[in-house]
Every structure is written in structure tokens, then in C-alpha cells.
């Protein structure tokens, strides 16, 4: 008399908790997920193809719009690949400033993650507090380069402008204030029993699976794999700084939460070190006005807030790249979603999408 039938339900593409335009095709048995299939491509903008019709400099504003929560890291990765093609040495001051800004960007991006993740699970006030602190970072970016979201501040061979007057003090002020604010988030969430029940044991992925799927960033480190591009292939001047790479043990949503929090603390540590040792000098190397890299190819990857963001360029010796390819951490991390949600309840999908920290702009390049 009583029997259950499996149902196919669409979640998204316009669901508020799918962080953009992700559509999930769910097969449900009651409230339990039997199978799921992420459907992507609702945002496809063809940036890779478009880049082939633009000069190397003109591509930078496009990379801003890939992962729009972490534009600076994308800029940095792309410009790094071009610099590799050209064989340009970046002046140390520019490199230090790049590191400071990249780490500020990581904090800003993680704050958006924490805000939306908490909101998805049901904690409203964390959302408001995180955005308040992110605003302060965006103010720093605005006074550095004039934009709040799509910075376009990195130029081939260095940076467009030097830091404005008083910037270092402002940044230091933020760094001093930040730990007390972090404590507030932790007070609200870390031992909150609702938070614990919604995150512990949810979306578990083993280290082996994570490596096999090519996951990166906190998704990989949550499972206990110590892999960070900043340590493995140090770019810019990460070699000069002393910082730890936090790793988890259980590979669940709660571990990834703790990792991202710790990463924010480590980022702050790097920023303070860089501010203390900020060298003087040029901020831009000598670069020809017309950028024409020699024939060849280059791959450069940076540790973005979501994982390894790679840029692959092939040059045929002309002003425009012959082929452009982006390795997006969001795209790769997303493929673990069916594995993560299997057997969980529908409400947990929301938490798991949050822990993936996807930005669909970077998935549908």
C-alpha cells in the first residue's frame, strides 16, 4: 500500500543557494538524494575563444570576469603566464605588492564564502558581518586601483600604479582589527550546535578520491592532502614569507570550514610580513610598447582562494595568443558534487554547494 517512487527534481539554475546559475538534476527517494547531475553552461561567455582575438594586454580585463569574487588572483595568474612567455623579471616591490593584494583578495573571497555558506545553512548575521569586513578590503582595493570588483590592476612587468599615500597604514589598521572580527564569526559558528550538526560528516571525500578527481584548494586540503601552489611552485615572492598550510583530517564540510578560517589568519600573517619588508624601487619592469612574445607556450598557475587557477598560453609570435586555455578550480571541484551529495538529504545539498565555494563565472568560461 505504501510505496515510494523516485522523483527527478530540478534544483536551479536560478536557485538562490546555487551561487549563480548551477542546475542540479536530482533523483530523490523521498528526501534522500539517490543521484545527481550538475548541468552547467548557462553562463557560457566563450572567454577562451574571445581571448584569441585580443592582444595580450586586452585579455586582462576578461580574466577579471572569470572568477569575479577573486579578480586579483586571476589577473595575477594570467599576467604570470604572459611574463613567462616574455621572460620578464618583475621588480621586487611590485612582487611584494602583488602578494599583499593577492592575500587580501583571498581574505575577501573567503569572507564571501563564509557569508553565503552561513546564510545557506541559516545564519543570517554572519552574512552581514562578513560583508562589512569585506567592504573594508574593497575600500583598500578602491584606493589602490579605483575599482571594487574588477580590478585590472596588474600589468605585464609589474603593476599599473604604486600604492597611494597612507595605504600601508590603512592596510595595517585592517590587519589589526581583523582577528577580533574573526573571533566573532567563530563565536557564532564554531561551537554552535546547529552548525556542528549541519556540517560534521556532510559531504565527506577521501584523500584518494580528491586527488583522483583533481580537486585543489581547501577542497583537497580538507581531506588531509598537503598541496598548495604557493609552497609547491612558489610564484611572486612567496618564498620569502613564513606561513603554514592548514590541512584537515576528515574531509567533511566542517573541516573545510576550519581550514578556510585558518587560511584567512595565515593570509593576514603574510600581509603583515610583506608590509614590514616592503622594498623601495620600481614597480614596473621595462616592457616593449607592443607586446609580441616569441613563439612558444607557457603554463602558470596560482593558488587562488578556490584552488589551482592555471593559465595556458600558446604564442605564434604575433600580438595575439594563438590558443588560450584556463584551468579553473571551480570547474574541477564541481565534478565532485555528485559524489559528495549521494545519500544525503536535500537540505544538505545546500550546505555542500556552499562548501565547494563555486563561482559559476569561472565554471562556464
Amino acid at each position, binding site marked *: 500500500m505504501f510505496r515510494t517512487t523516485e522523483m527527478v527534481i530540478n534544483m536551479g539554475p536560478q536557485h538562490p543557494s546555487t551561487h549563480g546559475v548551477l542546475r542540479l538534476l536530482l533523483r530523490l527517494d523521498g528526501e534522500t538524494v539517490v543521484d545527481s547531475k550538475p548541468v552547467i553552461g548557462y553562463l557560457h561567455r566563450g572567454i577562451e575563444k574571445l581571448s584569441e582575438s585580443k592582444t595580450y594586454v*586586452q585579455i586582462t580585463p576578461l580574466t577579471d570576469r572569470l572568477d569575479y569574487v577573486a579578480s586579483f588572483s586571476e589577473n595575477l595568474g594570467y599576467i604570470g603566464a604572459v611574463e613567462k612567455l616574455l621572460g620578464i623579471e618583475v621588480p621586487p616591490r611590485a612582487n611584494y605588492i602583488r602578494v599583499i593584494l593577492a592575500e587580501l583578495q583571498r581574505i575577501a573571497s573567503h569572507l564571501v564564502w563564509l557569508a553565503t555558506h552561513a546564510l545557506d545553512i541559516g545564519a543570517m548575521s554572519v552574512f552581514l558581518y562578513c560583508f562589512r569586513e569585506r567592504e573594508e578590503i574593497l575600500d583598500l582595493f578602491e584606493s589602490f*586601483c579605483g*575599482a571594487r570588483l574588477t580590478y585590472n590592476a596588474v600589468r605585464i612587468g609589474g603593476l599599473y600604479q604604486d600604492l597611494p599615500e597612507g595605504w600601508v597604514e590603512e592596510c595595517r589598521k585592517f590587519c589589526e582589527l581583523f582577528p577580533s572580527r574573526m573571533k566573532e564569526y567563530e563565536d*557564532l559558528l564554531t561551537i554552535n550546535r546547529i552548525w556542528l550538526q549541519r556540517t560534521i560528516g556532510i559531504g565527506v571525500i577521501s584523500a584518494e578520491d580528491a586527488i583522483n578527481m583533481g580537486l585543489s584548494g581547501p577542497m583537497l586540503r580538507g581531506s588531509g592532502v598537503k598541496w598548495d601552489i604557493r609552497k609547491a611552485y612558489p610564484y611572486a615572492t612567496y618564498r620569502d614569507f613564513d606561513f603554514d598550510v592548514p590541512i584537515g583530517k576528515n574531509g567533511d564540510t566542517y573541516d573545510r570550514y576550519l581550514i578556510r578560517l585558518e587560511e584567512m589568519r595565515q593570509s593576514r600573517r603574510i600581509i603583515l610580513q610583506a608590509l614590514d619588508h616592503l622594498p623601495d624601487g620600481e614597480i614596473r619592469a621595462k616592457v616593449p*610598447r607592443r607586446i609580441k612574445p616569441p613563439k612558444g607556450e607557457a603554463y602558470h598557475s596560482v593558488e587562488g582562494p578556490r584552488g589551482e587557477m592555471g593559465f595556458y598560453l600558446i604564442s605564434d609570435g604575433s600580438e595575439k595568443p594563438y590558443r588560450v586555455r584556463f584551468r579553473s578550480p571551480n570547474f574541477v571541484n564541481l565534478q565532485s558534487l555528485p559524489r559528495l551529495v549521494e545519500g544525503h538529504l536535500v537540505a544538505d545539498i545546500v550546505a555542500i554547494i556552499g562548501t565547494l565555494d563555486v563561482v559559476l563565472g569561472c565554471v562556464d568560461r
Partner: protein
Amino acid sequence: MHIEKRKKLSFLKRIFLIELFKGLMVTLKNQFRPHTTVEYPKERLVLKERFRGVPRLRMHPETAEELCVACGNCAEACPDNCITVVAETRASGKGKQPKIFIIDYERCCLCGLCVDPCPTKPISAIYMSHDYELASYTREKFITEKDRLYSGHEKREYKK
């Protein structure tokens, strides 16, 4: 570095709902902090000096002559092809000046790449202005001609 172990709450802490009160304290504390909401458009934030609004042209601040020499570098640098420059010989003095200068704000992505290659040093003729309220009922309004590039957008004030 392993992240610290999961905290086990002691029995006493659990029954007295310590974590709940800790959270409530945070929200309570924040009631007494200054408000962060800005009631736009009646209230506005102060823009930073380098703020990038739409690009505009400027005259020489002292001689009030046209700075732009119609070289077309900005049009070439623009990734969205939104600048059109047509040159003519200068009425007074040597060199060229723009006969037509159009920026299509509809396509501009506010990247600021047009400012880099402008050769009029030390003040570049094209600059990123502080104009950001550009909404309009017609699309033609976004195609901005030379006069309006110099004078800028008219501003509206709202009373509180």
C-alpha cells in the same frame, strides 16, 4: 599544519547553552556599533581619488586648450572597441586635434586600459572620471560625443 581538533563541549557547557549565549553576545555587541548602511542616493560614500568611473576627456588646466592630439592610441588599446577618433589639423598651433571623438559607454567595461598609452604627458588627455550614475531611457544617450566627454554627466541631488 593540522587544524586543531574538534572541540568537545563539556557536559556543563552543553546544558547551560554556553555556545548559544556566546553567539547572542556577538549580536548584542553589534547593536551598539555604528550603522554600516548607506541610504543611497540620499547619502553617498566619498569616492577614493583613483576611483574609475567612465572615461572622459579633459582640457589643459591652465591654457584651456584641447590636450588630445588625436593619435588614436586609446582607441587601439581599448578591448571593447568603444572609442572612435577622427583627426583634423589644429586650428592654432602645430599638430592635430580630434574632429570627432566618441566613446560608446554602452560597451565600456571601465577597465582603464585607454588611459595607459595616452602620449600627452604629464597630464593625459583621457582619464577615468568619477561619473558613475549613467542610467538612461535610450541607448543613444550612451554614445557620448566630444562635448559631453568634456562637460560630463549632469548630476542629480536628492534631499534627505
